């Protein structure tokens, strides 16, 4: 048999089947879960999506951005603009959020890719701040105090009527269920796409560029194109996620939509605590985060204080996160991306 490169493992296949099962359960959940649970899951899934994207950028791509909130915010505002100014259906306006994010990402990349390391990170943050300040000047969308989605728009969202009939719930709850399903789909598609990306040559090139850019270039990897591609893709999906989040919230303000805490701090914590550089990491991190939030949310500042201290402790003692610890102990890989050579007999050596 001719030798070939494979990434599939038995554990991975089992994990894949479990994932499909979970998604099916997730789809059916609104039938028997309370509205509170659906809302919580919505938050979890959208944060998970953002975390996977940040992980792709920083963990795999080596692009440490603390400015992704720029894309969340601009995506959300683009959706609001389409609804309020152009009369679009909010759900249909969600992809516009992605496009707006890409439009912002292009000049951002031109600027920040000239910078290295820490400068890059600060540069992304400044761009996010500038975007926030500029958007706060947009009087038609509420300026600095923000605005809400108009009643006519929210009462008439595509698909809501069907859901109301299906589950016999009120309109607001139906909106939540719709948002939840979209979030589930978005999270599943994003994770699947990232996994696919890493399994094929782009993933290998990305890892090469992250580990040693010069060496990667010397074997023909176009580092610039790869960085651009990853940055723009991440921006697009982040923008879509931002738009979706604010469809559910229905109320927006610059400080909220461009919040460093909500869209960068929490996301980074999820990735770090879960385990950076592995797809399993953000999944585990989101669960830990959700558990912490549920138990500590009533304690306001203590909650964030604890989160900060946990992040420090994890970086000091378990830099590859909780998943890293688990994986080291058990050798478990649920999303196997390592390439093995099959069909070859290796002689000698060890």
């Amino acid at each position, binding site marked *: 048999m001719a030798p070939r490169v494979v990434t599939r493992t038995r554990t991975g296949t089992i994990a894949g089947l479990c994932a499909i099962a979970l998604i099916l359960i997730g789809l059916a959940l609104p039938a028997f879960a309370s509205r509170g649970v659906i809302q919580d899951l919505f938050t979890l899934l959208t944060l998970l999506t953002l975390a996977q994207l940040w992980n792709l950028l*920083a963990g795999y791509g080596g692009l*440490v951005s*603390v400015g992704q909130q720029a894309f969340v915010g601009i995506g959300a505002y683009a959706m609001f603009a389409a609804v309020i100014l152009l009369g679009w259906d909010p759900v249909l306006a969600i992809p516009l959020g992605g496009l707006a994010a890409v439009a912002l990402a292009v000049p951002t990349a031109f*600027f920040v890719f*000239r*910078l290295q*390391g*820490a*400068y890059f*990170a*600060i*540069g992304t*943050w*400044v*761009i996010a*701040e*500038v975007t926030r*300040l*500029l958007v*706060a*000047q947009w009087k038609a969308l509420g300026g600095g105090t923000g605005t809400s989605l108009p009643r006519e728009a929210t009462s008439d969202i595509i698909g809501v009527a069907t859901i109301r009939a299906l589950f016999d719930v009120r309109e607001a709850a139906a909106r939540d269920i719709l948002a939840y399903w979209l979030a589930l789909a978005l999270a599943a598609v994003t994770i699947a796409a990232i996994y696919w990306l890493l399994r094929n040559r782009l993933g290998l090139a990305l890892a090469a560029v992250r580990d040693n850019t010069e060496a990667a270039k010397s074997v023909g990897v176009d580092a610039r194109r790869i960085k651009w591609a990853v940055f723009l893709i991440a921006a697009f999906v982040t923008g879509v996620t931002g738009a979706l989040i604010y469809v559910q919230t229905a109320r927006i303000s610059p400080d909220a939509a461009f919040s*460093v*805490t909500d869209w960068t*701090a929490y996301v*980074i*914590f999820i990735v*770090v605590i879960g385990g*950076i550089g592995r797809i399993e990491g953000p999944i585990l991190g989101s669960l830990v985060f959700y558990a912490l939030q549920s138990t500590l949310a009533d304690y*306001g*500042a*203590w*909650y*964030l*204080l604890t*989160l*900060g*201290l*946990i*992040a*420090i402790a994890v*970086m*000091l003692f378990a*830099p590859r996160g909780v998943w890293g610890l688990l994986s080291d102990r058990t050798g478990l890989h649920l999303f196997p991306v390592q390439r093995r050579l099959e069909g070859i007999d290796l002689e000698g050596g060890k």
Partner: protein
Amino acid sequence: MIWIDTIVQGVLLGGLYALFAAGLSLVFGIMRLVNLAHGDMIIFAAFGILLITGTLGLNPFVAALIAAPAMFALGWALQWFVLNRVLGRDILPPLLVTFGLSVALQNGLLEAFSADSRRIPAGPLESASVDLGLVTVGWMPLLTFATAIAVIVGLNQIFYRTALGRAFRATSDDPVTASLMGIAPKGIFAIATGLAMVVVTIAALYLGMRANFDPSIGPARLIYAFEAVIIGGLGSLWGTLAGGIIIGVAQTVGAAINPEWQILAGHIGFLVVLMIRPRGLFPRAVD
């Protein structure tokens, strides 16, 4: 003559930003460490000074004098026990640890002091002004600017005229060879952070006397500080002052056109400079 007044105010504001940035420049220059908690540490020191003036009834300058050695010790310990363990080739771990520290500090201060705005009482200094002919400036901004210059001169003296300064520069160039000279890099880093915290205390004093502060304003100070450092270029303290002044002037000019544009103008100024000179105005040769 409103433009001259605006520009002078901007320059003096730049002195405050240079104070924010000097400690950051020191640490960034020596160990390439991005301390995302730097702004929150300034706020922490400001609360410390407030506490001392409140409980001991002392003059803020004296309070800062008392707070400074304590902050040195805290900075030294932070570097020795925490940050030294994550310093290395990868920029992510120190970034994440200091990010966690930033969040922890902000919320710790929130729990301890509530979200109320505070001010360090400065007595007559708060509103006193001096007529310089073309413009009238407040004593506070003038004193702040003069202190910024004094701090930079002081730090440069340490860097270029003392054995410690030689050790700082050598360790920044090449930690391994520095250790061959008998210099322990970890110890040097700890002293550097301690020294940076003393500068932070001075910055906190002027921040607190000049304007209201609360636990949440740390990150904004951090951004201004970083912008000043980056505009100035790695390793140049005078560059950091230039950076502070550029941002200060951009802000006051922006505010003169439209008060809502003040902060935005500062950021735009930063972006413009960086577009032209990605490594800053006065970067050193080795990086």
